[in-house]
């Protein structure tokens, strides 16, 4: 996705080397995906479902200022 859009940054993080990040994002299984700090899931998904999560993360961010805090969309674990 980062290849296709200038708005996307993709980080591949080796969890064992950075235990502080693994703790912060509660990584208990891999691959764990965290989108915009508000949406997360564990495991590979078909592309359409992956896209749905990214879309949800973007929409969740857009709502943030007016509703008194982002609706946190915590999937997976």
């Amino acid at each position, binding site marked *: *996705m980062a*290849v296709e859009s200038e*708005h*996307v*940054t993709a980080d591949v*993080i080796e969890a064992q080397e950075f235990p502080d990040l693994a703790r912060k994002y509660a990584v208990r299984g*891999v691959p764990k995906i965290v989108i*915009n700090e508000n949406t997360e899931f564990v495991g590979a998904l078909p592309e359409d479902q992956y896209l749905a999560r*990214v879309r949800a993360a973007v929409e969740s961010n857009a709502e943030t200022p007016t509703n008194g805090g982002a609706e946190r969309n915590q999937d997976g674990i």
Partner: protein
Amino acid sequence: MQMISDKDRQTIREHFDERLKGDVDLIMFTERQSPIIIPGKETCETCEPTRELLEEVASLSDKLKLTVHEISEARDQADELGIDRVPAFVAHGASRGQVRFFGIPSGYEFSALIADIIDVSTGETDLSEATKQFLGSLTQNVNIKVFTTPT
């Protein structure tokens, strides 16, 4: 020590020859091993193996160029790329967004690295039209973190 076997080198070289289009800059940040032991400061155990691995990968195509920075001497550039820890590297080429790697891309991650280098070189992906359309309509930034382990 050679990190990629001769057989794998040959396979990757052919794959690169066939698929790479534009040049790709691999910009790596590392930390040199200090002879002084500072209590409480962890040494970067994967910095050197990561550098060796990237050197071997970069040697497999003329289109790949590796630059290695000591992070303490290149803070501005690291900040600009959002890199605050080592080992880390970015792949720059025809991609529109940014792809960053934190930690050594070994095991399963190695094949993801090779695939990402090719995508960054071509600026193209196998994503569906629906996904591409969504990405094209984005007006705000999206950060995707993928946590992995080597095995």
